[in-house]
Every structure is written in structure tokens, then in C-alpha cells.
């Protein structure tokens, strides 16, 4: 395991090192890139063999800083012959004196920089512990940022990996009255494509599952029927063969199929000869005409032409919406202009329809044009930006901490700096030398951070919820590298500038006379350090409040009763093969036999089926009218078709009336069951039992069951209507089994049971129902987990900051403390002095942090469920927690202060 991790870090390190080689002039790089990378790998191996973990930073410090120094040298030489090298006095090749100590010779900026770099390098090699802590702190800050930015880069910035993707749009039928954004119907699509003036090309997509059979065994594959324009809209070309011809979108010519790269590799072993061969789907032969490349974003693994029969295009089917429609806007047309055009066309449609029905008018029907990118990332955009902001705060805290380390060190170096200045070095030279040191360290931190970010990415991809689009495509690309490089330089400048300014403002005479450490400038320096600690605490509090809110919100979501009991249930989907079960009656018989056989399995207590499981992806909604209401109003509910003992299996309570039974079949009276939410919404103050609704014919309501959540636990409860499969039979159902059996064993038994009915019949998505719930919680869990992690980093860094500042306080004032103790002060009062100081700083930080939280957490509002962004429990709890951590961090140096020996403390100096 360790070995494996080591080799991953090694590979990442070498990759980062190779990337950093761009710093070198091109000819140099071209000549030695590979050799240098190999040398660096050897260096890594040697160092880690000798020093284990400590070898990594040592190798990086050595290889990385040497690289930066070489880059400076080589660039100044400008690829020259190097003659200038010998112009100095003999022996000048050793480390040069720092530039700040040289006279006012004719030195160039570059030469100064080079000298600074060398001096810094030498200095840092003499203080490896300091360099190590700085590089590590920065690596954590930069690594977390690199990783989060690569997610944002992949998900938000590269959301649609197609050429000119900002022109891609999705089209929807919208119903203002129902607040509904629906798919598009076939006649709606054809009419709009013909009449619109804003789209270069439009395409309709009908996702479906296809039963592929053949030598590789039966398999149910997610595919899509698409109109031929699909490939022009997305600008996809076939990598082998071709895409669809216009005439293949006509019934009769449409037995052709295009494979995704993935399917081609998986099922056909990437055989290029597959084009032209025949493939059996749903019992019919299709000719494979091409393969499309990997980055095809839709999940479909195979594509067939989408054709419409005249019946399907009948205007009566205008609101029979089942197609996804995408389009590419003509260059220069804005989304607003496209929407305006759609408004006009939809208005014409409503007018034409008015003679037959006023439904389109009444429901506020329209055609909506949406940005494909916004539609894809809309839900996760806020969450990712909040996370990026949070990780940015961690970065700032890391910089503040490192600044403090630098300040502490530059205060210790006051005398050295004063000497240099007395010999003629300008303030500017001294500052730039300190900044160079900072940038060198931060570049090393950045390089390590990049490696860390690469590993974090792998973790994020594993943890990330499935509904974040393109999370699996997260990678360290050029943009991420540029981001990390910029961040590293920024870090160096940020944390080195303050101390540099401070150090170079040193009061020469006073410092030289006093011996350094207690001058006016060092007082200023200590104030600056206090200020940085206060800022760290404020930022840490902001992050803690954010993560506290997310945790509390997550707790609230988990507490929501889903309306059913997922424990000890297993679900799977099954769609009876059309070739084997062509008639509705066959399908019905299949379901009945399947449920019957499963019910007879040992350990199964009950079984039922439904077309959509609660909280699973997807939905079916339909409108219906209530008979006897004079307004003739349309109502909208989630439609569910159930078979067997579904309610009992899911433990959805029957509140009133009766459950479906065997008599509720095609020969019986059409009936429906509604849920509590539907009763509350549509029959307020009335008894729904016995009422009649018009949905697929007139039917009587026979029962009311408890409400279940759909679309997410944090969503508003939706109204449901349940219809018996005996009367209306979908061709695809989810079977739910309640059992005490082990999942793996049951899964195998279920497969056997299905294959006993028909050996070619596939079943899919077999999983414990608890996994379905868990998947629906993935997004809030991801947000909370990451924010808590970031806040943990922040807290740790802030605690280290407090501890560091107080340690220095104790060191600085040990003489004073010694005198106090000699004069009779007890340990308690010394403790109070130091801890009090720490808590005072923390208090100021808390106040500032709370103010920032009140303003900042508003960005979280849309991500929170059942918690106000200014939730007092979170604000108070988190503040108290931070105060407690600060007290512990302050106690350690305080205890050291109580052990000051008065005699020794006073005799120092």
C-alpha cells in the first residue's frame, strides 16, 4: 500500500517537475527535458530510500529550487555561449555574496534576481525545518485549491465539450400555470424546426433502453434515437464509418445504428471491421454504420435514427411530450432573441389550436429556449462556487500563517538586515530579496500542491455525487496548471510582502545599538503578527460557520421522513422484451408471473412493482381533470403504476379506503389511489374517496395512502396518483422486494428467477433501496463533507497561528515574566497573562468573523434546507468551539511561560 502510494506520488512529482521545465529556455528544455526528469526521479528515489517521508520535500527543495535558479541563469544568458561566466575573479563560481551587499555596480534587474535567488537558496538550505513547514503549509493550501479549481474547470468551464458550445440550446414545452418545464412532442418539434429563424440546426433525442442480443449474450443498453441533425448540432464526426443520412430518418430506412466508442470497445473489442456488420436489437437486425468518439457526452451507448410516422405527427399529440430537443443557434443570435422568436411561433400555435381546444391557452403553453450549459450545471454551480470560495479562504489562512513565520524570522534577522543596509543596500533590494525567498518557497509549495491536488482529484471523483456532470473528466489540464502557477506566485508575493516591507523599514541605528529584537520596527512587526492572527481567526470562523450550516442542513435533510421504509428492501428494473411479449396482455402476465415467483422465494416477505421508485431518478407526470367541477380545471400529479403488494412492501401506509386488488383489472371498474398530498391539494376539506377523475378514462378514487418524497428529500412534497397495472400497463417497471436475506445472495436468486421465466430477459439496476436513498443524498453530503474538511484545515492552521504567536510572545517577554515571578507573581497570573492575550486576539477575530459570516453565508442560502444562514445555534456553537480550540492552543505556550526560571531569564543578554 505504502509502496503504491509512493509510486503514485513519484509519478505525480515527476510529472509536475516536467511541467515546471517550461521555465527553462526552449532549446535547453528540448535538449535535456527527458534526462532532467529521469535525474529528478532518481533523486526522489535516493532521497526517499534514505530518508523515507522526509525525502520527498528534500528532493523537491533541491530539485525545484535548483530548477528555478537555473531558469534565471539560463534566461539571463539568453542562450548565449556563457563567456560572461568567466569575467569574474577566479573562484567566483562559489555562492556569491547577496546582491544587497554589493556596491552600486552596473547590475541588471536579472542579475539582482539571480543573486537573490542564490542567496535565498543558500539561506533556506541552512533552515530546512523552516522551509519544510512553509512548503508543506502552502502545499496544503495550494493543493486543495488546485483540486477544487480542476473540478470547477471541468464541470463549469468545460461543461459542454463541443465546439462553440455557448451556442448550444435546449428546447422545452413550458406550462406557466403548472410551473412545468416539459419535454417536446413530435409534432411540436417538427413544426418548430420548420418555422424557426434562429437555429442553424435542431435535433430531437428519445432516450431508451435497447435489448441487444448476439454471441456476447443478451444485454440491455441505454441508447437514444436521434434525428440526423444531432451530429451537426453537436459537431460530432464519426471516428469510423459515418453518422446518419437524412433519408435514414424515415420509417423503413431506419434499421441502422451508430455505436459509442465505449460500446464499440466493450462489446466489439474495438474491431474496426464492425462497420457494415449486422447487430440484433429487440429481435430485429440493424446495420452498424459508424462509431462516434469517446467524448460523446450523452450517456447513450448506441444511437439509432429517430423517425416519425404520420400518426405520431398528428397535431392531437401536440402535448404528448417525450423528446429532448437540442439546437445550435445561428452565429450571432442571442438566447433572448431566440426566445422572442419562439414566443411568436408558440403564439401562432396557440391561436391555431384554439378552434379545437383552449388547453394550450389555459395552461400557458409556450416554447422555451434555454442555454444548454446553464441547464446542465445550474444545480451544482452555486455549490461548486461556494466550495471554491471556501477553499480560497483556506488558502488565505495558509498565507497568513506563512506570513507570520516569515515575520518571526525577519524580526530575528533584523540585525543582519541592518548590517547590510549600513553597507549600502537599498530598502528596495532587501525587500526584493525577501520576496524572492518567498516566491521560491511558494513555487516549491505550488509544485507539491499540484501533486497533492492530483491525488485529491481522484478522491473527489470517487466521493462525488453521480449527478455532478463531467466530474469524471476532472483533470489537471493547461488551465489548471496556469491557475496553480499563478496561485503559487501570488502566495509568495502575498506572504512575503508584508514582512519584507516591515523588515526593510528597520531603524538602522536603533537596531544596531540594541542588538535587535526590541526596536520600534519590531513592535510594529508584532502588531502585524497579531493582525494576521486576528484575520486567520476571522476567516476560520467564516468557514466553520459555513460548514456548521451545511452539516445542520444535511442533518435536517436526513431527518426528513421519506414516506416509505427502505430498510431490508431490494429493487431492480425489468422491461419485458417486446419481441417476446408483444401485447399488453403478455406483459401483464409476465409481471404477474414474476411477482408470484418472487413472492414464493424463501426469505421474501412481500413484493410489489412500480414504474418509478421514490427518490430514484426520472419522473412521470400527467394532468387530469376532476369530474363534476365546473371550471374543468387541469391538475398535475406524479403518475405511478403499481402491481402486487407495492404499498405493503414499501411500507407506505394506507390511510383510508382500500388498496388495489386482483379485481382491479381490465374487466373491472377503472380505479385510482391518491396520496395524502394529492388529497390535501385537490380535495381540500372534501372526502376524495368515491370522487371521479378523468385520467386515461373516467376512474373512481378508492383509497388514500401516505405521501412519499420524490426528486430529493429536500424537495417539496409532490402529489401522487397511483393506477393499477392490471388496467394500465407500462413496459418497464421497478420491482421492490422486502426480505431479510443478504443482498448478494438475493441478487443471484432474482436473476435466476427471471431467467427461468425467459432466459433472454435482462434485468438491471439491481440494488438495495437504501442505496437509492443514499444516492439522492450524495450532493448535500458532498457539499457538507468538503466544507467540513476545509473548515478543519482552517481551524488547524488558525490554531497553529495562535500557538506560534503566543510562543514568540513568551520567548520575547520571558525576561519580564521572570521579573514578575521574582516579585511574587504566581503561576496562575502568568497563565492568565498569556492565555488572556491569546483569547483577546481570538475575541477580536471572532467579532470580525461573525460580521463577515452574517454577510457571507447568504451565498449559502440556496444550498440550505430548513436552516437559516444566520442560524443562532450554529453561530454561537461554532464561536464557542473556536474559542475553546484557541484556549487550548494558547495554553501550551502559557504553560511554558510558568516554567520560566526568574534567575536565568534575567541573566540572559
Amino acid at each position: 500500500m505504502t509502496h503504491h502510494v509512493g509510486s503514485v506520488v513519484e509519478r505525480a512529482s515527476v510529472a509536475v517537475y516536467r511541467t515546471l521545465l517550461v521555465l527553462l529556455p526552449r532549446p535547453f528544455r528540448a535538449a535535456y527535458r527527458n534526462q532532467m526528469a529521469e535525474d529528478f526521479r532518481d533523486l526522489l528515489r535516493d532521497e526517499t530510500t534514505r530518508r523515507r517521508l522526509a525525502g520527498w520535500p528534500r528532493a523537491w527543495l533541491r530539485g525545484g529550487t535548483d530548477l528555478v535558479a537555473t531558469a534565471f541563469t539560463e534566461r539571463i544568458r539568453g542562450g548565449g555561449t556563457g563567456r560572461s561566466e568567466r569575467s569574474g575573479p577566479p573562484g567566483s563560481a562559489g555562492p556569491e555574496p547577496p546582491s544587497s551587499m554589493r556596491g552600486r555596480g552596473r547590475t541588471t534587474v536579472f542579475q539582482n534576481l539571480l543573486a537573490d535567488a542564490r542567496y535565498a537558496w543558500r539561506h533556506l538550505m541552512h533552515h530546512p525545518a523552516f522551509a519544510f513547514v512553509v512548503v508543506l503549509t502552502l502545499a496544503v493550501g495550494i493543493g486543495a485549491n488546485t483540486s477544487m479549481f480542476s473540478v470547477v474547470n471541468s464541470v463549469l468551464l468545460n461543461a459542454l465539450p463541443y465546439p462553440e458550445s455557448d451556442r448550444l440550446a435546449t428546447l422545452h414545452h413550458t406550462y406557466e400555470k403548472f410551473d412545468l418545464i416539459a419535454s417536446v412532442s413530435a409534432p411540436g418539434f417538427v413544426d418548430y424546426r420548420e418555422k424557426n429563424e434562429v437555429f442553424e440546426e435542431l435535433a430531437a433525442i428519445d432516450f431508451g433502453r435497447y435489448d441487444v442480443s448476439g454471441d456476447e449474450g443478451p444485454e440491455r443498453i441505454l441508447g437514444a434515437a436521434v434525428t440526423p441533425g444531432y451530429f451537426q448540432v453537436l459537431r460530432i464526426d464519426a471516428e469510423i464509418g459515418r453518422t446518419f443520412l437524412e433519408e435514414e430518418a424515415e420509417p423503413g430506412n431506419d434499421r441502422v445504428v451508430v455505436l459509442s466508442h465505449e460500446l464499440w470497445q466493450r462489446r466489439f473489442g474495438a474491431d474496426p471491421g464492425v462497420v457494415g456488420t449486422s447487430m440484433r436489437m429487440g429481435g430485429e437486425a440493424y446495420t452498424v454504420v459508424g462509431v462516434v468518439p469517446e467524448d460523446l457526452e450523452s450517456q447513450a451507448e448506441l444511437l439509432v435514427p429517430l423517425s416519425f410516422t404520420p400518426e405520431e405527427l398528428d397535431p392531437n399529440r401536440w402535448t404528448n411530450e417525450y423528446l429532448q430537443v437540442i439546437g445550435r443557434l445561428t452565429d450571432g443570435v442571442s438566447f433572448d432573441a431566440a426566445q422572442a422568436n419562439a414566443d411568436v411561433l408558440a403564439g401562432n400555435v396557440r391561436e391555431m389550436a384554439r378552434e379545437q381546444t383552449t388547453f394550450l391557452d389555459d395552461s400557458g403553453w409556450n416554447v422555451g429556449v434555454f442555454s444548454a450549459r446553464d441547464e446542465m450545471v445550474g444545480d451544482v454551480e452555486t455549490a461548486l462556487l461556494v466550495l471554491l470560495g471556501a477553499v480560497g479562504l483556506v488558502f488565505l489562512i495558509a498565507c497568513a500563517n506563512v506570513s507570520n513565520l516569515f515575520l518571526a524570522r525577519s524580526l530575528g534577522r533584523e540585525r543582519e538586515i541592518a548590517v547590510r543596509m549600513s553597507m549600502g543596500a537599498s530598502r528596495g533590494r532587501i525587500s526584493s530579496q525577501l520576496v524572492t525567498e518567498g516566491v521560491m518557497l511558494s513555487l516549491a509549495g505550488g509544485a507539491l500542491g499540484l501533486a497533492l491536488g492530483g491525488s485529491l482529484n481522484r478522491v473527489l471523483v470517487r466521493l462525488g455525487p453521480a449527478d455532478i456532470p463531467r466530474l469524471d473528466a476532472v483533470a489537471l489540464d493547461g488551465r489548471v496548471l496556469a491557475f496553480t502557477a499563478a496561485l503559487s506566485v501570488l502566495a509568495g508575493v502575498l506572504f512575503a510582502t508584508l514582512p519584507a516591507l516591515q523588515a526593510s523599514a528597520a531603524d538602522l541605528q536603533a537596531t544596531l545599538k540594541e542588538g535587535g529584537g526590541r526596536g520600534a520596527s519590531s513592535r510594529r512587526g508584532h502588531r502585524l503578527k497579531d493582525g494576521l492572527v486576528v484575520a486567520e481567526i476571522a476567516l476560520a470562523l467564516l468557514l466553520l460557520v459555513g460548514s456548521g450550516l451545511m452539516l445542520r442542513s444535511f442533518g435536517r435533510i436526513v431527518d426528513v421522513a421519506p414516506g416509505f421504509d427502505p430498510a431490508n428492501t431490494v429493487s431492480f428494473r425489468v422491461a419485458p422484451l417486446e419481441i417476446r411479449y408483444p401485447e399488453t396482455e403478455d406483459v401483464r402476465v409476465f409481471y404477474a408471473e414474476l411477482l408470484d415467483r418472487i413472492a414464493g422465494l424463501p426469505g421474501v416477505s412481500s413484493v410489489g412493482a412500480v414504474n418509478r421508485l421514490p427518490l430514484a431518478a426520472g419522473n412521470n407526470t400527467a394532468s387530469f381533470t376532476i369530474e363534476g367541477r365546473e371550471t374543468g380545471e387541469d391538475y398535475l400529479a406524479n403518475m405511478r403504476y403499481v402491481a402486487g403488494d407495492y404499498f405493503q412492501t414499501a411500507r407506505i401506509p394506507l390511510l383510508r379506503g382500500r388498496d388495489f386488488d386482483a379485481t382491479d383489472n381490465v374487466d373491472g371498474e377503472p380505479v385510482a389511489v391518491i396520496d395524502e398530498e394529492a388529497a390535501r391539494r385537490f380535495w381540500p376539506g372534501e372526502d376524495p374517496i368515491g370522487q371521479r377523475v378523468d385520467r386515461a378514462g373516467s376512474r373512481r378514487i378508492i383509497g388514500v395512502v401516505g405521501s412519499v418524497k420524490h426528486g430529493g428529500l429536500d424537495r417539496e412534497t409532490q402529489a401522487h396518483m397511483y393506477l393499477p397495472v392490471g388496467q394500465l400497463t407500462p413496459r418497464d417497471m421497478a420491482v421492490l422486494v422486502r426480505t431479510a436475506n443478504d443482498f448478494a445472495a438475493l441478487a443471484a436468486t432474482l436473476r435466476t428467477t427471471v431467467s427461468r421465466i425467459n432466459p433472454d430477459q435482462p434485468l438491471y439496476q439491481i440494488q438495495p433501496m437504501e442505496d437509492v436513498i443514499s444516492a439522492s443524498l450524495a450532493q448535500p453530503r458532498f457539499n457538507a463533507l468538503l466544507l467540513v474538511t476545509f473548515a478543519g484545515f482552517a481551524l488547524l492552521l488558525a490554531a497553529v497561528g495562535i500557538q506560534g504567536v503566543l510562543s514568540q510572545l513568551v520567548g520575547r517577554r520571558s525576561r519580564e515574566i521572570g521579573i514578575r515571578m521574582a516579585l511574587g507573581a504566581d503561576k496562575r497570573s502568568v497563565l492568565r497573562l498569556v492565555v488572556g492575550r491569546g483569547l483577546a486576539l481570538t475575541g477580536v477575530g471572532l467579532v470580525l468573523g461573525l460580521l463577515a459570516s452574517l454577510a457571507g453565508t447568504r451565498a449559502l442560502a440556496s444550498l440550505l434546507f430548513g436552516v437559516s444562514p444566520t442560524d443562532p445555534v450554529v453561530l454561537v456553537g461554532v464561536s464557542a468551539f473556536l474559542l475553546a480550540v484557541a484556549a487550548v492552543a494558547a495554553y501550551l505556550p502559557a504553560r511554558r511561560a510558568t516554567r520560566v526560571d526568574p534567575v536565568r531569564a534575567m541573566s540572559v543578554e
Partner: protein
Amino acid sequence: MPARSERSLDAFLPLTATTFHVLLALVDEPRHGYGIMKQLEASSGKAVGPGTVYGALRRLAQEGLVREGEEREAERGRHPRQLFEITELGQQVLTAEGGRLAYLADLARAKDLVPEG
């Protein structure tokens, strides 16, 4: 390349510490970059990185003091290692630098500045 006169050898002197140690590292046998790095560390006590080594090698190659030798196969998945070897001119320059340093050491010794050891 024709042998150079003493006079033209002087044009290469003095060598910088890094170039001196790099040439020194190549006297016994051709080495690759990392081998030179380790020799450099042993003979000069200075821990340098690949950048410094190849910076020196590039200049030395431009001036004809070292040349690229054969490539040595490396383990799977790694690039073959380029060996560098010292040229005859490089040998001459290194000898001349040795002489120069010895002369300087003699001067210092005459003034009792070199601790005997």
C-alpha cells in the same frame, strides 16, 4: 578538431567550481546526469539539482569540452539515459586548470598559508 596551443587553452581558464567538478566527474568514465550530480556532491560537498548539472553540461558541450556519448537503456517505462564524456580538449583544459590551481597552492604554501595535513 586540431589540438590547441597552450595559449588558447588559457582562454578557458579559470574554470568555475561547477564546471571544474563536472569535468572531474567525467575523467574516469562517461556518466549520465544523475551520476554527475552524485559525483559533484561527493567531490564538492555541494548538493545541486539537475538544472545546474545540465546548465554546465550545455555550456561545456558548446565549448567542445564534453560531448554526448552513447545512450544507455533504462528500465521499462523510462527514457534511455544519455551518457556524457569528456573530450580531449576537455582533458587538456582540466589539466591546465589543475596546473593553475597547483601553482596557486604553491604560492600560498610558500607563505605558510596552507595547513599541512
